[in-house]
């Protein structure tokens, strides 16, 4: 047991930086532009809150194109009233991402010469990067499209459409300035035939100017649906490659998993080389790449499952009751705070990552499941269907750094044995890392200043050398 009991922990929330290198073209809807400028959104993120049939969805994207060319099309089960639509805050996503993101923790080996284990000074850690035009009625009728409702909410102009057939809807969208990728009608048709409506949003430039913001805030909507599902197929219409989607699901009773695809926990809680402290985003990106490829892009990965009332270690505070309410958690009573009354966790760079223990008197009824899916049209032919299990076991994508004791090998008889065990441990860490990321083991050993273990021939030790006959 080389690790000190108290652990210094470093959290690096990386979602944004990792996924930025995987341009995703849409999440639940598709983003379309009027001009030929290439449009894309990166790091699609969705918060989905569900209890019974009540569902609240929040959608965030890193759309960086011209705001007036932004558009979003999402199938919804019913015509939404104004009160069912809201514009949320981006910092909510930043917070939930930071709270649930993959994390590094570090431990320091104690002095093997000391009899009693003494707590070591804890290293400082970097702070986590917490991470239209009005439609014309006559044309609509001819196209079989009905504008069921129209609202301006925050910086968005929103229309709820119903349609009789997909070609008409495609034409309507095109005529109203949404440049629909070819194949859109085909993708829209199944939703029309299931009698679904379409939530269509564009940016209202005047309203947007009033907000003074340089980014687009997340759109939220609340509705009732028997289906616990997320439509991802529309987003594949203009996909040019695999897309990434992070889904934060908040439920009352247990972990959420997909019923029509495999849900796999990422390999986690492994010892990895300490040099990854400075390369954690690259490490996690490679790890996810490798695991997704191993599953042939056919699995949904669980990155985090935790009761929202606590965390250990905490990459960020759990969401406050107010934040949970903003995210759509409607079942908390006024006094049922998700966090205990202790003061909020200080922003890190400082030092030890804190832990937040469960609230006395029972855990809060909000379980957060963070799922990460990389999907392609051929590997995910169906929309994601979910179920809430009764599984309440916590899980986090956590990777461990163990710092060796920096003493003299000759300090005491135990020290030599200790350093030999460190060498074995580091070799194992190198191999773990190579397996997780598909990085070359030689490169890893080079960065760790490790020598490759001497190759042992089969005949080594067969005869003792130097014996005279």
């Amino acid at each position, binding site marked *: 047991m080389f690790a000190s009991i108290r652990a210094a922990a470093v959290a690096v929330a990386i979602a944004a930086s990792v996924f930025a290198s995987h341009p995703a073209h849409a999440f639940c809807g598709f983003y379309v532009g009027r001009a030929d400028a290439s449009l894309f959104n990166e790091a699609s993120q969705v918060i989905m809150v569900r209890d019974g049939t009540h569902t609240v969805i929040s959608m965030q994207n890193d759309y960086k194109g011209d705001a007036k060319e932004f558009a979003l099309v999402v199938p919804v089960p019913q015509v939404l009233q104004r009160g069912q639509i809201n514009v949320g805050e981006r910092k909510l996503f930043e917070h939930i991402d930071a709270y649930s993101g993959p994390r590094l923790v570090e431990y320091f080996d104690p002095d093997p010469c000391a009899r009693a284990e003494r707590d070591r000074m804890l290293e400082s850690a970097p702070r986590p990067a917490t991470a239209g035009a009005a439609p014309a009625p006559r044309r609509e009728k001819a196209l079989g499209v009905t504008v069921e409702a129209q609202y301006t909410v925050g910086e968005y102009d929103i229309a709820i459409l119903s349609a009789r057939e997909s070609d008409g809807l495609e034409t309507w969208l095109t005529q109203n300035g949404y440049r629909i990728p070819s194949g859109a009608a085909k993708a829209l048709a199944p939703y029309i035939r299931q009698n679904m409506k379409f939530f269509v949003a564009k940016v209202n430039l005047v309203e947007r100017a009033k907000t003074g913001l340089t980014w687009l805030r997340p759109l939220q909507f609340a509705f009732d649906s028997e289906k616990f599902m997320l439509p991802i197929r529309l987003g594949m219409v203009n996909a040019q490659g695999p897309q990434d989607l992070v889904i934060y699901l908040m439920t009352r009773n247990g972990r959420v998993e997909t019923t029509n695809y*495999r849900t796999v926990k990422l390999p986690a809680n492994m010892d990895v080389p300490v040099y990854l402290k400075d390369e954690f985003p690259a490490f996690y990106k490679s790890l996810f790449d490798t695991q997704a490829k191993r599953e042939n892009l056919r699995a949904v990965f669980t990155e985090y499952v935790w009761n929202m009332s606590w965390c250990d270690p905490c990459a960020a505070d759990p969401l406050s009751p107010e934040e949970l309410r903003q995210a759509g958690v409607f079942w908390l009573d006024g006094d049922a705070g998700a966090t205990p009354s202790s003061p909020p966790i200080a922003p890190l760079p400082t030092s030890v990552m804190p832990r937040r223990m469960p609230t006395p008197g029972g855990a809060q009824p909000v379980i957060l499941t963070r799922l990460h899916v990389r999907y392609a049209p051929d590997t995910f032919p169906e929309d994601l269907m979910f179920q809430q299990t009764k599984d309440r076991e916590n899980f986090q994508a956590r990777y461990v750094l163990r710092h060796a004791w920096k003493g003299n090998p000759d300090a005491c008889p135990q020290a030599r044995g200790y350093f030999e065990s460190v060498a074995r441990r580091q070799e194992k860490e190198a191999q773990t890392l190579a397996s997780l990321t598909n990085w070359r083991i030689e490169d890893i050993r080079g960065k760790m200043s490790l020598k490759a273990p001497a190759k042992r021939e089969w005949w080594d030790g067969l005869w003792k050398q130097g014996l005279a006959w």
Partner: protein
Amino acid sequence: MVSAARAVGWAARLRGLDARLYQIAFQATLLGIGVVARDFTLRWEQMALAFAAGLATQVLWTRGLGLRRVGVLSALITCFGLSLLLRADSLWVHPLAAALALSAKFIVRVDGKHLFNPANLGVIIGIGLLPGAWVSPGQWGNDLAYAVWLVALGGIVTQRARRWDISWIFLAFWLGLVALRVACLGQPWAIWWHQLGSGALLLFAFFMISDPMTIPNRPSARALYALLVASIAFWWQFVLFQPNALMWALFLATPLVPLLDYWLPGQRFAWQQPASSPLPDKRLGDPAVG
């Protein structure tokens, strides 16, 4: 002469046991693959307790009722089925479900035939009544090769059990209904292929609904029963949008089996019945054999 007759008897007995032995071997392989390569959230203690409780229940009931045969193979199949399907966050769910499901085999009987498929009942008790239990229908994944293996091996098992017809008829009805839905909604056919490659579906078709002891005796009644189960499952999954449709559909349709047997009577099945010489009726009613 005596030894030759004995040898023939043993051969007949082995032939009779083959179906369940094949099924057990296949379930064990599947469980091994699941635990090692498929990230099943199943703990070995849960499995061990399920088997211990299931076998103990079977022995207690057979001894208590003074039956000649303990029926270990059937109990093993039920325990394997529960280990493959049921997931729980505690250690007591699996043994309790196994004990209740196997007890029902001796208690809930109609006309000398046990009513519920034990593994199906155990799963329904777990997800319907017990806290902290669930089924992960997506756990198998959709690898086509995997599915083909399931079909091939499942085919062998059900063929040896000689009531293989219900598996294929059920699959035909179910996949037909899914195809109809895909066509009506204008969905891509990849969805149909996705369903076809569902490990949970094939496992259900070949190892659950095919249990010859809990389905109608007559082929035409079995076909009707397969259609019924497929229809209920379709309604459950695509109208109610609830998970675990196949499990619930079989459970809900089960009470109709005695009615179908009454209206459309047929020859009762027995595991150890040699093809040429049906066993006496008394043996057929032995619950330990089912």
